């Protein structure tokens, strides 16, 4: 009788442990608790803040306007524009950028916004693929991102997105490059401190695609991540590489709740 009781209690304990474990796994431990999150704009100088705040002089809007034109222009053998299926982006695209990267069942993989747009371009419009960092893809991404302006970043890391999330987190916490530094060392342990004359941010991607003064152009989050890797003298994965998408997913989870800034301006 006693053995049965012990076994029953053990099974119950394991079951309860599994439930708690699952709850913990989806709750995830955050190095930066949600109330402590700060967008990169709060670490930027007055020039950058002024440029981002003023739509008439924000250079990113040149790409947004291009994007709007592309949205309405027929493309590919299907002769359809984005608007043919999605109508007015202001309603159909609302919230989309804030939910990316996300797992796409048709593609069978986690996609960032650029990949999702590129996919639609090829599959639905039967048009030529758009290269990463091309003017067209940047413009369309900027236009779609604008429709999520101010909305909280909110991505799913459960189910099919889980593996990519874990890989992204592992990448973030691992040391890379000749300088042998992990993303976490600057952006989790030393944010707010100075690197030469700059203040290190928490490393969120909630303002991308962004007009980066250093680039004198709008660029994607993946470009910014590659630049960071270059900075610590690590090999840069090519644009569109799965490691970069995994990292984007992890970063989006890390930035949960931060309002999306579009088009962003950064130094």
């Amino acid at each position: 009788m006693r053995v049965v009781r012990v076994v029953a209690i053990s099974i119950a304990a394991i079951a309860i442990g599994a439930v708690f474990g699952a709850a913990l796994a989806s709750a995830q431990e955050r190095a930066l608790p949600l109330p402590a999150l700060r967008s990169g704009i709060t670490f930027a100088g007055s020039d950058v803040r002024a440029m981002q705040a003023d739509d008439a002089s924000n250079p990113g809007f040149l790409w947004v306007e291009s994007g709007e034109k592309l949205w309405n222009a027929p493309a590919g053998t299907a002769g359809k524009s984005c608007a043919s299926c999605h109508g007015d982006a202001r309603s159909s695209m609302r919230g989309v950028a804030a939910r990316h990267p996300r797992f796409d069942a048709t593609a069978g993989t986690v996609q960032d916004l650029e990949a999702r747009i590129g996919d639609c371009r090829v599959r639905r419009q039967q048009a030529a693929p758009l290269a990463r960092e091309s003017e067209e893809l940047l413009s369309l991404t900027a236009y779609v991102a604008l429709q999520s302006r101010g909305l909280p970043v909110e991505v799913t890391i459960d189910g099919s997105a889980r593996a990519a999330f874990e890989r992204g987190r592992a990448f973030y916490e691992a040391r890379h490059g000749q300088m042998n530094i992990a993303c976490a060392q600057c952006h989790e342990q030393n944010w707010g401190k100075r690197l030469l004359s700059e203040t290190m941010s928490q490393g969120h991607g909630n303002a991308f695609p962004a007009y980066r003064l250093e680039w004198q152009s709008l660029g994607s989050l993946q470009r910014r991540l590659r630049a960071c890797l270059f900075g610590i003298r690590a090999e840069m994965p090519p644009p569109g590489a799965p490691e970069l998408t995994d990292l984007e997913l992890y970063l989006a989870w890390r930035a949960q709740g931060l309002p999306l800034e579009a088009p962003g301006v950064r130094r």
Partner: protein
Amino acid sequence: MPDARISVPPSVARGKPFEVRIIIRHAMETGYRTDESGKSIPRNVIRTFTCRYNGDVVFSARMSSGIAANPYLRFFVTAKDSGQLAFEWVDDNGVRGSDSAAVTVV
């Protein structure tokens, strides 16, 4: 691809100065950069910019590589009659760009 983004108040008071803002898509290539193979990228910047108000030049700028990429200009024009602001610019390669905006004077 749109060349420029213009901002003019929806209506302006006669005789008073009003704000004109324009940002032009242009790399303003300095001529000091090199490409990946080490080859120098030739200079190409917007040299002249003019703003005509109902045909009369009211503001012009001569620029150099000392003006940042995607040049932004904010200046003032005194309102006379309703009509049009016509902007024109030319770069080192001789490529011309233009755009316009309506002015409603009350």
